[in-house]
């Protein structure tokens, strides 16, 4: 893990535990997410990847009975502490979901939403930021002539890029992706992967994927989870070439999962 030290950590989970009611889904996890890098979370189905990811923007606060233990630092703020409002966390850390979930509004309004919830009213500013976000999400050219169209009329891959634009619009410090391409066809997947490689120049990315190929293709760091625990973390090349745990190896060879 030495390489890490040279990189600035953007977020850091320390002794993190998470419980769905009495079910212990994330166990004692320590994880450092380096700034402006892509960190991939992999592991067999049900191991807690999604659960861990959603701790980073406190999505679990939406449902009763969920409980965190430990700390997650975003820069120097412990975002699990009581003083910090989960909404504030979500404004700093945005998220893209597994299934594209654009709002049933126009394309423009979907992207503008992130600004509007913040109370932004200035039309020209919103216009400008929407355009910029759509450009960053590599969608601008395809939709610039029909910003008033309903977002639901876009194709799956376009919808997902729209969701990325939506996540980008308010300059988040970090973006969480939960298997963002698992509902998409290979071509759409490729364009989203390409997009992500570019995004990391501005923003820190933490991504859950069940495709090892995907993780190998474009992540810088990889964390391997197993039964709620974090078994392995390191540069992607290291984790893939010489994993230090037998389970990691088994998983990578397709024996579990």
């Amino acid at each position, binding site marked *: 893990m030495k390489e890490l030290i040279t990189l600035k950590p953007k977020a850091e989970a320390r002794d993190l535990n998470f419980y769905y009611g009495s079910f212990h889904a994330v166990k004692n996890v320590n994880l450092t997410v380096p700034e402006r890098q892509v960190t991939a979370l992999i592991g067999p189905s049900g191991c807690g990847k999604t659960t861990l990811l959603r701790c980073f923007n406190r999505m679990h606060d939406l449902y009763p009975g969920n409980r965190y233990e430990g700390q997650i630092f975003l820069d120097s703020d412990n975002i699990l502490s009581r003083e910090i*409002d989960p*909404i*504030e966390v979500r*404004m700093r850390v945005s998220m893209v979901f597994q299934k594209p979930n654009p709002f049933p509004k126009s394309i423009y309004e979907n992207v503008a939403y992130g600004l509007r*919830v*913040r109370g932004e009213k200035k039309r020209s500013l919103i216009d400008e930021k929407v355009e910029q976000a759509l450009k960053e999400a590599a969608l601008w050219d395809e939709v610039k002539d029909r910003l008033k169209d309903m977002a639901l009329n876009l194709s799956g891959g376009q919808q997902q890029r729209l969701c990325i634009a939506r996540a980008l619009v308010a300059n988040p*410090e970090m973006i969480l992706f939960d298997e963002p391409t698992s509902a998409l066809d290979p071509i759409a997947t490729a364009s989203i992967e390409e997009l992500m490689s570019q995004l990391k120049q501005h923003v820190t990315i933490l991504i859950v994927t069940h495709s090892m190929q995907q993780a190998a293709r474009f992540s810088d760091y990889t964390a391997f989870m197993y039964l709620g625990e974090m078994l392995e973390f390191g540069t992607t090349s290291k984790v893939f070439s010489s994993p230090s745990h037998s389970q990691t190896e088994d998983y990578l060879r397709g024996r579990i999962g």
Partner: protein
Amino acid sequence: MTDSNLQEIRTELNRRKKVDQLFAIVGFLVILFSILILVGLTLQMAISGIYRITPDFFLSFPSRKPEEAGILSAWVGTTLVMFVTAIISVPLGVASGIYLEEYSRKNWIADLIEINVTNLAGVPSIVYGLLALGLFVYILNLGESILAAGLTLALLILPIVIVTTREALRAIPNSLREAAYALGASKWQMIWDHILPYSFGSILTGVIIGLSRAIGETAPVITIGALTFIAFLPDSPFKGEFPFISLAWLQAPFTVMPIQMFNWVSRPEAEFIANAAAAGTVLILMTLTMNTIAVYLRYWFRRGIKW
């Protein structure tokens, strides 16, 4: 992210959260307010009528003297009308529910029946009164009788019984149907031996809710002419000689609880208003009891079952 930026976010957020909390309070108050108004109105009514609710009130006929008047003919009438309503609506509604859920194939007849049932549920109850007046009273010549009223209310709650029956049947897992079929049961055997017994509780719940609705219905019974001075009971359903059961009561003139209450509400004298309040309190207690039983039954029947 710079600190000033963060500061900005926080002030903005505080404002939004205040609005959010304000709404949470408003929403809670709205619900509280609706329920409290209702409880307040009911209590107000109960208090102004409570002194009239004595055993005599239940055992006396209506009278021109408010302090002697009671609801004997009304509650007996309600009971008998409900009996007829249940006898007609339950088999008809449950059978329709079974047909729609277990038999009907996707064709235009099924669609027609479906659309029709949902639409019937939205027909104003007074219209059932007109149907009763035109069809039962005059064409079928049933007169202004318990039978006519029972039939009318049965048709009125038919959609409720059908819909709840269908929901009850839908809740039964398909695996049980397949299990019965795999043992060589015919369709009707499957339904009679399994589906009906297992959905009995939920169907019963729906029937009770339907009947509690029927108990409170006034308008459709008014049109068939139940608002008269009725100070007697219908004929007894039992008689001394063979066959011991008499159906004369079906044709008897009658009154029912909500009509009796309506009658008293339209009287100006304060003493009659107290009677109306007392009758209203009894009526609310009747419907509430039925609803509570229904809720309890639903809970009780669901508790034992983990498919």
